[in-house]
Each structure stands twice: as C-alpha cells, then as structure tokens.
C-alpha cells in the first residue's frame, strides 16, 4: 500500500489538464506516444470537441522513481464544469493528492478555485503546476500567477512547479513530486470492506461497471457485495484494475483503484458516491459524502415529428443507462403533443444530452425553455414541487413559492467589477463579499436565484468581461420569492409550452420582450394573430402579427407545373416542422424564444 499514489488533476478548462495527463501516461509508458491520439482521457467525440471531460475515468500506471523504487500511480480524472461539482468531489475523495494546473498566461480562475477548495476540503495534498510557461505571453504574467498560487495555497514559492505539458518540460518533475509529496493511502486491509464508487459506466455486454477506490478491507471475485444506499446485494463477477483497457486481476485491496462488474443491470444501482461493502461482513458506516445527484434544471423535450415519441423514449432510456444524473418523465403539451420533462444537473448537461440525442440517436427535437424546480406551498398547506411552469397552481391557491438559490463565485479582472455587479443585480443577486486575489483580480461572491443564471448568464458574463471572467456555482437553498406564472396566448389560446415563471418585478418587461420576439419568429398567417402575455387573466402585453396578404405565384403554365409542385412540397415540409395551436402555426424556434431575447 505504501507504494501506491492516488491523485487527480485540477484545472480550469483549457489550462492543460488533459495534455498533462497525456504526458504522464507517456512517461510512465502506459501509452506510447505513437498510439496516442491526443488527450486519451476524453474519449467521447463530444468531449474532444468541447475540450471538456464529461465522464470520469481512471488509469493505473507503473513508475520507477529516482529513488529507485517502483510505484503504482492511479490517475483519476475529474469533470471540469460547474454542473458536475458533486461528481468532482467524489473523484477527489478517491485520491490523496491533486496536481493543480494553472495556465501561466491566464492565472487562477473561478473553476480552479472551486475545484481546489473541494480538493482542500477532501484533505488532499496539492501540487501546484504552472503550465504553458513557454508561451510568449507567459513571461510578463508568470510572477503574478506565482503570487496568486502562493496566496491561494499558502505554500512556498519553491513548491510551485513550472513547465509546459505540451512540450513535456517539467512534467517529469510533476511525477516525482506526486511520488514524494502525495501520501500513500491509509486504510485497514483487515477491516470490513469499504469501497467508494467514484464513477460508473454502462457496458452493453457486462451491464453497469463501477469504478471504485477501496479504502478498507479487500474485494475478491465471487464475493457478495452490498451497496449502502439501497441495500441491494450482487455477486462480484469480475474485479480488476483500470489500464488502457480493463485488466482483470481478481482482487482489489485497501488503497487500490479499480473496477467491479457484478451483473448490475442499471447504472442507477451503482450511484456515484455510494459505498460498497461485503454482504456477510458489512462495515458499520458508509464512507462520508454520499448524495443523490439531483437535477437542477428542467426542460420539455419533444420530438419534432409527433410520430417519433416512441423512438425518443428508447433513445432517452439508452442514454440514461450511461448517465445516471439524467431524469425524464412523460408529459404532454397541447402545443407540442407527447414528450418528456427531463431533469439535468445544469445547462451544460442539458446541452450535452440534447446533442447526444441528436447526433448519436438521430432525434430531431424541440426543447422548451429550461426552468428550475419550484417549491409551492398551497393555501391548504400542501407542498408540491413544480418542474413545469404549465403546472403552476392558480395564483389564488398559492400561499408561497420558493425557488432554488445558488452560491456563485466570479473571478475577473478588477476593471470589470462594475459591470459584473450590475449583471448580478439585474439577475436578483445578493452580494456577499469581494476579495482580491491580486490587486488586479477580484473574487466576487453572490447569492443568485438559479433561474436567473440558467438562461444566458454565463454568455453575458463572458461578453461584459471580454472573456476574462470565470464563474462557478453550487446549490445553496430554497428561498421564498414573489414569482408569477406568465402565459403566452395566441389568438386568445394559451400556449402551454411557452409559459414561464418569472419574478413579478420583471414580468412586464419579460412579457413585452416575449411578445415582440414571438412576433419576429412566427411567420405571418392567413389571418391576424394577437400575441399576448398574461398573468392569470390580466393581459400585460400585446403584439399583433398582421395577416399575410399575398402569396401566389403569378405564372403557372405547362412547364411551370412540376416546378410549382416541388415548391409546394418544400413548403409542406416546412409546415410539417411547425406546431399548431388553434389555427396558428408556430415554428420550433419560437419555443426557445426566451433564450434569444435581447435586453
């Protein structure tokens, strides 16, 4: 056990985490330079394109250190986005050390800090590594970045490693530091088994594969294991370590990182953060820190073509096998027909799911405007959770409505503080405090309603700070707010899929913008269309879409007829993609109108 080092790499997007991982794999010979398509840890197409790691993986390496001894290194990868804070914390919990990568040209970012704090909370030894020192712009920045790191970690400047993962400079030193500074795992090999699930994936042939870190005891094939969270018992079929492929070694011991296959049909039984123990000799307590992954953002997902409902269900079911954070339940909308209310960890997660449904499962989809889950207390004392604005009870029946708040952290150059504060105020944020990482760099803390950041907060933040601000958040609590349901009516018929829940103070503005955006997006029809926004029975805004007056091809003789028919067929295809409410045809883009509303 004392020759084992379990570590992870913590970094902001694009600061070079994956590149450093690649170098480490190369140096330890886990993968040859020749076989390496870049960044092996990110193996989904989507991840490579977005340059972010979505699913966690781990890899074991053998390394002979300068001290002449042989070490086993386990690199556990962590997802790099705010939506996945809990998953990150579980990966960190499986390690004793973390390499903190900071881009020499960018400095410390919100995400770096958020993940770093998680690592510090988990009691990890931190090895700071300033990357990209060979870039020309690094020269002027490097001392500032060093100072930031020293301030942040309270470490000595000599403890900071410098290098370039891309060219390999300084990466050997990183591995040596891991061996020297990261403590060996502690744990009792004789105690009852306790193994932490830090990730799980679905294998078409083997079912759920749990990626685990053994803390106490040992795990062998044929053992009967029990999952703490649900008490279910399975027999271990295949136990091994994680190299480039799974390597079946038959047993794992305290300190080891590896996998378990136990004929588990569903990844929902191998929950991230859960503890595995033996059925016949169970541990008294699970490992700390387990939480149910809870969806925070909800959206209606409908097939563009209403006949494709069954297909969409199949696609979602398949996707869920691999993504235990995705939830979905059938729902129906007058405007959109049959579809699903899906729950996501956050906006990025929502986008990933949508893209995977479209690309991997070939689905053509309509998404409704995303929303959060509201806690509604009715006048009769009944408390319900509302994840679809259409189901918000009538105002007279509501005692109070609570909405989720988050703790947001923004790190940005000081010159942007003013506009960032304005943005946060516009989003109903409550300022907590601002500290300065350096004289030029502020660390701003706000409490914000989650609903206010799921639209375009991040894009806005990026644009007002010219891309320099970074953002991280974590769920805080539910708070009472003066929220109202805003309905959209087309020719007096409410369009359920366009209902939103907004703060009363913003409802007029919101209604006006919605109406004017819809007027742009809905094509003129054969009759006039009144577009109204209403709260309850009170209309607060109205736009009129005038009727189309002429649409006819002037000439249609012998040679024109085929051409004309083809034109109409095209038009017909266009209409098929429209949804009909009453007599009004609505294009699909309209259902996401809110996302493209201008201020």
């Amino acid at each position: 056990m004392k020759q084992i080092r379990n570590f992870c790499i913590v970094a902001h997007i694009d600061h070079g985490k994956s590149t450093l991982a690649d170098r480490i794999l190369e140096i330890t010979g886990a993968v040859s330079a020749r076989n390496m398509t870049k960044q092996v840890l990110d193996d989904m197409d989507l991840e490579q394109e977005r340059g972010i790691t979505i699913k966690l993986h781990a890899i074991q390496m053998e390394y002979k250190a300068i001290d002449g001894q042989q070490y086993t290194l386990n690199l556990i990868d962590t997802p790099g986005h705010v939506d996945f804070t809990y998953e990150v914390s579980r990966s960190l919990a499986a390690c004793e050390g973390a390499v903190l990568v900071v881009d020499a040209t960018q400095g410390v970012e919100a995400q770096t800090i958020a993940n770093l704090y998680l690592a510090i909370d988990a009691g990890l030894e931190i090895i700071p590594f300033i990357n990209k020192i060979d870039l020309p712009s690094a020269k002027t920045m490097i001392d500032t970045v060093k100072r930031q790191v020293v301030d942040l970690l309270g470490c000595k400047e000599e403890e900071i490693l410098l290098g370039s993962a891309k060219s390999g400079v300084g990466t050997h030193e990183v591995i040596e530091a891991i061996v020297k500074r990261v403590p060996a795992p502690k744990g009792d090999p004789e105690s009852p088994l306790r193994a932490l699930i830090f990730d799980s994936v679905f294998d078409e042939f083997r079912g759920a594969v749990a990626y685990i870190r053994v803390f106490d005891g040992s795990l062998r094939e044929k053992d009967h294991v029990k999952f703490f969270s649900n008490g279910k018992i399975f027999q271990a079929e295949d136990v091994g370590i994680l190299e480039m492929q799974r390597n079946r070694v038959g047993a794992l011991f305290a300190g080891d990182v590896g996998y378990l296959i136990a004929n588990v049909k569903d990844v929902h039984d191998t929950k991230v953060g859960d503890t595995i123990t033996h059925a016949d000799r169970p541990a008294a307590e699970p490992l700390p820190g387990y939480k149910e992954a809870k969806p925070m953002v909800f959206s209606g997902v409908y097939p563009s073509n209403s006949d494709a409902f069954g297909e969409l269900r199949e696609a979602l079911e398949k996707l869920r096998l691999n993504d235990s954070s995705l939830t979905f339940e059938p729902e129906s909308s007058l405007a959109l027909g049959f579809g699903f209310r899906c729950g996501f960890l956050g906006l990025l997660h929502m986008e990933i799911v949508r893209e995977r449904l479209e690309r991997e499962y070939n689905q053509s989809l309509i998404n409704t405007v995303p929303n959060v889950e509201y806690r509604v207390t009715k006048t009769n004392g009944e408390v319900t959770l509302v994840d679809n604005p259409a189901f918000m009870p009538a105002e007279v029946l509501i005692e109070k409505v609570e909405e989720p708040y988050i703790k947001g952290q923004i790190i940005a150059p000081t010159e942007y503080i003013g506009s960032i504060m304005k943005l946060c105020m516009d989003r109903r944020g409550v300022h907590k405090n601002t500290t300065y990482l350096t004289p030029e760099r502020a660390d701003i803390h706000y409490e914000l309603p989650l609903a206010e950041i799921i639209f375009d907060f991040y894009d806005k933040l990026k644009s007002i700070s010219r891309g320099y601000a970074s953002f991280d958040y974590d769920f805080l609590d539910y708070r009472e707010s003066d929220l109202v349901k805003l309905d959209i009516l087309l020719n007096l018929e409410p369009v359920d899929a366009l209902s939103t829940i907004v703060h009363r103070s913003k409802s007029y503005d919101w209604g006006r913008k919605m109406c004017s955006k819809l007027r742009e997006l809905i094509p003129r029809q054969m009759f006039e269309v009144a577009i109204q926004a209403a709260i309850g029975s009170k209309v607060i805004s109205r736009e009129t879409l005038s009727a189309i007056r002429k649409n006819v091809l002037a000439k249609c003789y012998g040679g024109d007829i085929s051409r004309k028919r083809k034109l109409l067929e095209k038009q017909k295809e266009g209409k098929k993609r429209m949804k009909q409410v009453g007599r009004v045809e609505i294009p699909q883009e309209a259902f996401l109108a809110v996302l493209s509303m201008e201020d």
Partner: protein
Amino acid sequence: MASLYLHIPFCEHKCIYCDFYSIAPSDGLARSELPTGRFLEALKKEIELRSTTGSAGVSYETVFFGGGTPSLLSSQELGAILGHLAAKYSIESNAEITVETNPGTVNRQKLQEFRSLGINRLSIGVQSFHDDDLQFLTRIHSSQTAKCCVREAYDSGFENVSIDLIFSLPSQTRDRWISNLDQAMELQPTHISCYSLIVEANTPLFRMVESKQVSLLDADTDAELYELTISYLTGHGYEQYEVSNFAKPGFKSRHNKSYWDHTDYVGFGPSAHSFSIRSQHAEGPERSWNVANLSDYCSKLEKGQLPVIGMEHLTIDQLIEEEIFLGLRSEGIDLSSFRTKFGKDLMMEHELRVRDLLETSLAVVEKGRLRLTSKGYPLCDEICASFLS
C-alpha cells in the same frame, strides 16, 4: 380533349425579366443569321416523330405558338408549321389557335395573313402603356405601338385578342397601375393576363435586384395592386378564371385551361413540356421536357431522336397535389370528379380547413366545385400548402 404547344425560340431582343428560352441577335448573331431554317426543319421532324406515339384517335382542341416571339416568324413559316401539324394530328375545326405576338413585330398585313391561316386568337405582349415602364423592362415597343397593334388585330378580323400586362414594377404607384388598366379598357381586349413582376433567377433583373440597383415593391403594396387588379377587372365585366387571367364571357383561353384541367398536351420546340395523363406507363402519368438549347435540339432531331432531356411519372399523391393546386389556382376543384378519380372526399378529408376557408370567405362551393374567391386568390399558395400538409 388535348392541346398542342409550339415553342418558337427567337426574339428580337431579350428582356431583362424573362427567363423563357430563346435566342436573340444580341447574342452575337445578326438577325439574318438566326438559324430559323434549321429550327423549322427540326420542328417538322419533331412533329412527325411525336405523332407516331399515342396520338391516334385523339383530337386536338387548341394550338398555341409561344416563345420566344413566334410573331417574328413569317406567315409562310407559321403556315408551314400548321400544315405539318394538320398532316399528323387531328385538329378540331373550331380549335383555338393562338399566336403570342409582340408589338413591333407585326403590321396590319401580317396580321391579316395570320388570320387567313386560321389563327383565331392573338396574345399581345403589351406589358405596360407607359413608355418608361417599357424602357425599364427593355421592351422593343412603345405604348403607341402597343395600342396600334391591338387595334390592327381587331381590324384584321381577330375577334379574340388578349393582352399581357405586368404590375408591381419598381416604384409603380396605385395611380399609374390604374392608368394602365384604364388604357387597356379603351382597347376592349376580350382577355387580359395580369402578372405580378416575378424576379426569376438567371435574369439580368435578378442581378439588378441582388446588386440593389433596383428595389422591388414591398409585399403589402404588391398585394394591394393585385387586389386592385381583381376588383377593377371583375368590375369591368371580366371574369377571373385563374390567378392572373381574366376573360370576357366566352373568351377564357381554352389552351390555358387545358394545363389547369390536367388534360394532355404535346409540346414541340426547345424547352417545351409535354404531359400525358393517359400515359400507358406503369409508373403513372408522364410529364417530359425538351432540351432548352437550340443547337442540341436540332442535333438530336437531325439524328432522328426526340430532344427530350427529362421526364417524371407522377405518383398518385403527386397527381392529387397537382389537381388541388391547379384547381385552386383556376376555377376550382370539381368535387365529384375528384372523388371519382381518387376515391377520396376532399371536403371530408380536409373538413376543418375547408370550413375555415368557407367561413372566412376565402373560398366557396359553387356548382359542385370548391373554388377560391377574389379574396382567396391572393393567398392561393398559402391555401394550397395548407391542403398538402
């Protein structure tokens, strides 16, 4: 019932908005160098070739010379073509025989000769009675020539004279368009075709619009002029029997109607289309079209081959689509014959849509036909699309 169409691919000048196939002296040839002789030979050959397939027992009710500018041909040349046709096809004695005629290409004598060949209908390309409009459109004639042409047509014994007008020209006002219609009324044509200016791809006008040299009227003004046209002409005793066509009682173009009624037509000449609903082809009614290139056209026929370059066989669904949009564009869909042909009840199948159209007076059911009203015609394509989706 069936029709014959002949495409005469010559023009004195190519107008900026026109995308029909023709060649003109400005394309690098002197007028005397246009290969008229070669074309006429090829056309004769095509008439012979086509007559051997499927024309037996069919009698032809209309003949239409279009183009191009068929009136550029001499009366002898036109007479020869009619002779070839008569030798190979059974043309009814009261057939409607039309020649598209451009002002400035004919005189009284030539018109008299046309009349004596049995040609009984002229379709005169007036386009506008304003000289600056005509200049914009790069027509070769003046307003005066146009008026003169129409009067001479009557004087030469024609009783059925149609004129073409174009509206929604750039910067055209309501008053100017009314003045065009007023001047048309003075000439008392039996038939008027009024087209809203279409900007066809691959025309000089298209490029002028693209490069913002010319700006078109906005959609609402175009709609207004069209609505005005309908009410003006129907108020002056013309019946609208198609989106752009208006006729005095008894003067609807039988040839036009043959297209819209889905009857057979045989087209000769480059770019001409043919259609056979009775086609014996297993895949359904056949529509085919000739190559739109004069020298390819001639070469093919010189080798004894038909100059057909494309064809399609309509599926039953396509046929239904065409029946619907051709019907709605013109005098309506005959509901009982629709049921007989396709075994479907249009009114039942589109119950809500039809009820909507009737309630909003965009359509009426009249003499067993579902037809658009003058309020419905401007929305014809919108209505058709709603039927097809």
